């Protein structure tokens, strides 16, 4: 069969060190991108409801652009082009020495790979999150908005107190799904050089050709993180 399995070759020494470092980076990038995605989703939800038509149009165009291009291309754009677009002062600050911003394995939070990845993945999922929220809003009965209006509630109060709570209840499963998706999509960032789990698994493979063991370890790690994340996010759901 030609497949001799040697776990020790992967779960000890340098390979183990790499894999664990990759795990830390995956967790860090998942967290960073999730924060950004949440912020983007909130902003987009508000923008889509703007009374100013050009704002709504521009928002729709932006969303359409993000949805219809591959994540990988977006990461390449942010990596090659994005950094150069930042104001010089911000760039200088990011390149400067900040000991708190360096993760185990010598990965800096402000390294172009990490920053472009966090922003790229965060923006991508943020768009899909706002789509789920919008779908949730559309599923709220029209009578709800009318009842609120007939009582004299302001547009803001109607949204915040009546419509959004129901929308989020409707969309809870898909929203959780998007965050799980985000975690899995961090694997794509290995292509711009971020040393997360997939990157490190390839590193191990090219180090000692233990492809099966390395990718098996990576698979287990992703499945475990996904399982834990799903548990945590679904625990917030009221039965």
């Amino acid at each position: 069969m030609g497949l001799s399995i040697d776990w020790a070759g992967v779960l000890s020494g340098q390979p183990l060190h790499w894999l664990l470092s990759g795990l830390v980076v995956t967790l860090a990038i998942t967290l960073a991108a999730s924060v950004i995605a949440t912020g983007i989703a909130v902003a987009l939800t508000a923008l889509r409801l703007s009374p100013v038509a050009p704002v709504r149009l521009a928002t729709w165009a932006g969303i359409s652009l993000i949805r219809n291009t591959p994540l990988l291309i977006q990461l390449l754009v942010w990596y090659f082009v994005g950094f150069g677009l930042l104001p010089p002062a911000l760039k200088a600050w990011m390149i400067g020495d900040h000991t708190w911003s360096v993760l185990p394995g010598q990965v800096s939070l402000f390294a172009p790979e990490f920053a472009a990845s966090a922003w790229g993945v965060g923006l991508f999922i943020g768009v899909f999150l706002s789509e789920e929220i919008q779908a949730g809003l559309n599923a709220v009965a029209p009578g709800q908005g009318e009842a609120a209006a007939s009582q004299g509630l302001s547009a803001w109060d109607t949204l915040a107190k009546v419509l959004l709570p129901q929308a989020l209840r409707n969309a809870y499963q898909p929203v959780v799904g998007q965050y799980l998706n985000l975690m899995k999509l961090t694997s794509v960032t290995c292509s711009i050089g971020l040393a997360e789990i997939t990157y490190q698994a390839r590193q191990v493979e090219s180090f000692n050709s233990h492809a099966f063991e390395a990718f098996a370890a990576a698979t287990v790690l992703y499945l475990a993180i996904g399982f834990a994340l799903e548990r945590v996010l679904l625990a917030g759901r009221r039965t």
Partner: protein
Amino acid sequence: MGLDFSIIAKNWDYFLWGRTPQGEVGGLLLTVLMALAAGTLSLVLGIAMALASWLGPRRLRDVLTFLADLVRGIPLILVIFWIYFLVPALFRTKVPGALSVILALAWFSSGAVMYTTLAGLDALPRGHREAGIASGLSEGQVFTTILLPQALRNLVPSYVALFASMIKDTSLAFILNVPELTMTANQVNTRAQVYPAEIFLFTAAVYFVLCAGLSWAAHGLAIRLQPG
């Protein structure tokens, strides 16, 4: 900001079909071909799994669902690596990068096809099956002549949307140096060095036109296929 798109003009044919004239299919052409191959495979596989789930015992549906969820719980890029590295080890044959990507994509997406198809079958009004049974048709006949054709027709827009996703996912072939559109763009960028914005924005635009066009077509189909 002064963008200079002459780099695109000079390489437009390379972006579109890579080194196909020299015998190595590439560029946008390869992207579309891979998506079509993976799409067809995942459609066949996914529909087969959906039929097995629908017609078979409850147990089978549970098993297939579990397997589909398992594959979808692993990042697609990792599935690509599994196939690329593991199939040669198991079967002693080398697998070209493009084929690894096609197989990985097909396997990964078959779960989505299965779920979508089952949803389409579930969405059919109960009355259709009952009307068929009442007029004397067997369960099997009802399924193949009444339910399945209707479900598949209703599902065409969803399948087109899944195909649009597949076009985007072919970009991951970049990781195996397969010369599809994204890899091609990266090659041009590496050679030219000074036009990353123009190159990647152009590439994004090509994907956008293709995928947005497909989504728009799916939407149009969904409206036209409404009964009545």
